[in-house]
């Protein structure tokens, strides 16, 4: 990986993602920090990236590298974690039952991805599906459900009944249209930045290679 990418491109991309994902458009505009659960999910997500070989931490932090190079690497890792936490917070509804369901949904998907131990390509595709589906659910489905102006009378009656049945835990604050565009751009930027991380061999591939080498050694010994 070139020093330019490591020192400039990746940290600035991830910090821009962290900034945009925390920006809550509305009246008033405010910047929201990541939720504690998003920090846990971000740990899992970074773990998935490492296990799949999408991120090779030894190419960012290593005893053989200079202090300056290790500082750049540490900043890439820190900003990757911050951006991941902010993106996951951005994709999670703010309150009620949807918050609980989304957190469970993201947790299960990330654990499932971690357990299957995919290589870099499938892991990136899986990440795209996780973030894309969460985006669709929050900014399209939930936004449509929480929009008081859209739809006809029957839809409003059904929504009111549904809201009453769930003790008002479904409806969310109305999402401004610009938020969806901003979220989409943020996710795209995040995926680009993750794809540009220094890659290595996945744990699964490393284990297979080691097992193969051990078998070969056993055969030679015999």
């Amino acid at each position, binding site marked *: 990986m070139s*020093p330019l990418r490591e020192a400039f491109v990746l940290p600035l991309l991830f910090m821009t993602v962290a*900034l945009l994902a925390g920006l809550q458009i509305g009246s008033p505009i405010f910047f929201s920090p990541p939720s504690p659960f998003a920090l846990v999910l971000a740990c899992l997500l970074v773990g998935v990236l490492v296990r799949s070989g999408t991120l090779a931490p030894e190419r960012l932090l290593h005893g053989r590298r200079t202090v300056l190079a290790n500082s750049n690497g540490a900043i890439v890792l820190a900003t990757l974690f911050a951006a991941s936490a902010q993106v996951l917070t951005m994709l999670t509804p703010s309150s009620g039952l949807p918050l609980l369901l989304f957190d469970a949904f993201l947790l299960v998907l990330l654990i499932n991805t971690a357990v299957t131990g995919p290589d870099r390509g499938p892991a990136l595709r899986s990440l795209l599906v996780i973030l894309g589906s969460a985006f669709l659910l929050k900014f399209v489905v939930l936004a449509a459900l929480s929009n008081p102006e859209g739809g006809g009378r029957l839809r409003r009656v059904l929504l009111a009944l549904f809201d009453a049945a769930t003790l008002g835990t479904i409806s969310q604050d109305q999402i401004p249209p610009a938020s969806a565009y901003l979220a989409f751009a943020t996710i795209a930027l995040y995926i680009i930045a993750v794809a540009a991380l220094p890659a290595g061999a996945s744990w699964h591939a490393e284990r297979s290679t080691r097992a193969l080498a051990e078998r070969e050694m056993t055969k030679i010994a015999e």
Partner: protein
Amino acid sequence: MREPLIRSGGLLASLIYAAFIGWLYVHQPQTFAQVTGGIASTVGAYHIDQPSFADGLQFFRRDQFVESRAAFARADPAEHDAKTQFYIAYSYYRQGWGRLYNSDALFTSGLAAVNKAIAVAPSGRLVVDDPDLQMHTADELKAELERGLQRDISDFNPLRVFRKRK
């Protein structure tokens, strides 16, 4: 030679950008003017528009409080000048003050403005030497606004009608 230069530059740029993002999260600016004004005041380069401030002061002294606030807002778009914010808070106090009752909405806005003035004043201490005012410090003004928002038995004292606006 070139690689250490790139790495040092990247490190510096990352730290500056991270500090900027941290500043945004701490100060929560609402407008672009507040962002630029806040950054300028951090490096000591923020100045209010003096002609607009003078206009605001003139309106304030003629009890034209809405006009004065418009001029003060023009003078201090970033809401980073303690004295201007103090006058804005004072204008809310004078407009909201009533012999029989005070306007809670105006007093609440005044309290928010005086809190802003205290937040941006050096060490939170603000003294305004203006002979036209009867309260010269942000602490006095804040206490007066808070007293005005409180509900207690003294609100029913008929002698309240004889009190004077400060």
